[in-house]
């Protein structure tokens, strides 16, 4: 074709003699429907409680799709930062519930950022900075969100428990023990719970949730963050 046009045609770009105005798309078979939905719900439940000198995050370990149990052990709590794949000396925990694949992608991104922060600044990121960064990550995907509700917990610079919760696109709030909500009731005096009471409270909350929600069960994963590190406790829940 090139040889042909070079000696017979003066036009700079060869054209087809049968060129015709493109037909409208509907004539050529019509629009295809997008039937692929890129999300699913893997169920489960998580919670966080912060205390005077600790933060507890907890989640069940069941993974579901519809009425099926995918597995009885797929953790929803992840250590963020620290060193190496074992997150040695990490002080921040992220919990994700919703679409597990997005949750995992989010965890990996945040973990990479926190590790790079230490590499670049020579100190560990503060929970507050990490929480702010997570908010930006989520909002950055405002138009194709990570379909997860996340909780971030850790110990702040003063050694007190810190807790942040998120909806799929943004930081919702930092938990403030003093901020009582409700109308017409005398405000409760905020008294941080001790660690033992909190752990029992978490366990009770989950055993109740198991009875009321089919997506919750199998195992309870608790992470207790103190200034000394993260303690992980896995205990059984009902499997029905």
């Amino acid at each position, binding site marked *: 074709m090139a040889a042909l046009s070079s000696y017979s045609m003066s036009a700079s770009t060869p054209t087809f*003699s049968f060129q*015709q105005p493109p037909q409208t798309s509907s004539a050529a078979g019509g629009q295809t429907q997008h039937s692929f939905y890129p999300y699913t719900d893997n169920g489960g439940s998580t919670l966080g409680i912060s205390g005077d000198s600790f933060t507890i995050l907890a989640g069940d370990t069941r993974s579901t799709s519809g009425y099926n149990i995918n597995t009885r052990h797929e953790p929803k709590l992840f250590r963020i930062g620290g060193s190496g794949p074992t997150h040695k000396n990490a002080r921040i925990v992220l919990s994700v519930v919703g679409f597990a694949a997005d949750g995992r992608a989010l965890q990996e991104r945040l973990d990479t950022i926190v590790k790079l922060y230490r590499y670049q600044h020579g100190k560990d990121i503060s929970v507050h900075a990490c929480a702010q960064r997570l908010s930006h990550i989520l909002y950055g995907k405002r138009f*194709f969100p990570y379909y997860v509700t996340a909780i971030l917990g850790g110990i702040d610079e003063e050694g007190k428990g810190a807790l942040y919760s998120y909806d799929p696109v943004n930081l919702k709030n930092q938990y403030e023990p003093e901020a009582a909500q409700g109308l017409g009731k005398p405000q409760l005096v905020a008294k941080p719970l001790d660690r033992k009471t909190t752990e029992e409270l978490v366990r009770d909350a989950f055993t109740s949730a198991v009875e009321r929600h089919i997506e919750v069960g199998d195992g309870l994963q608790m992470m207790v963050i103190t200034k000394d590190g993260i303690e992980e406790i896995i205990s059984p829940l009902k499997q029905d």
Partner: protein
Amino acid sequence: MDHSPQAWGRPRDDIYGSYNPSYLPHNKGGYQAHANGQPNTHTQSPIVTGTSVIAIKFKSGVVIAADNLASYGSLARFTDVKRLKPFNKKAVVGFGGDVSDMQYLDRLLSSLDVQENYSNGASGDLDDETENRAMMSAKNLHTYLSKVMYKRRTDFNPLWNALLVAGLDEDSKPFLAFADLLGTTYSSPTLATGFGAHLAQPIMRRAVPDEEASQKLEREKAVELVKQCMKVLFYRDARSMNVYSMAVIDENGVDLKQDIKLEAESWAFAEGIKGYGTQTV
């Protein structure tokens, strides 16, 4: 009549009608992809499909099985499609879902294997232990595949598969995990995709309820369990077949059999089933 050289040898418009230019390149008036507001189209549903894949972890390895059928809708179209793909001596991948996407992934894994063996310098100057540690484990393979799947779903161009990766991890411990078109991943002592999640998983869980039970499970028992499940699947899954492949992966490598016939197949039980729907006798 158009006598210009470009028209030589072309079908005449006045006789054959005008040429549909949509398949031509963009700059020649084609508008198949993107141009003219037409969206780029991707796989929106699977066409030729494979049904369940099932697998069980036992004491020293993993058993995985899938039948040899590729269906075209409800038509049993291809009866010799091998859906278990051995990757190396530590890992086997079992594919459910779209067969052409399986073939794409299989080619992807072949090129990955070539790359791996170049970089490892598997020329024989390494001792067995070093080579064994350097070899990509089933865990590594699962991470790789799940990232491919998640990337493709994020691009709205999914690979329509549910896969099981079975084999040994970097410490030569049994490894079994799942990945699907959404990038969802999970791991369990017993796993099943598709219909197997409904039919085979309860049978397998009854025998192997947890990790502890799988660490005590003998190879023979695991194989027997998988055979039993394949039978139940053949009896109840209308998109299944009675010839299947089964692989056992342990420290001795991959033992893959690709033409196992269902043993002691009998439909005698069917006669006793009465009373469904409108049937009254």
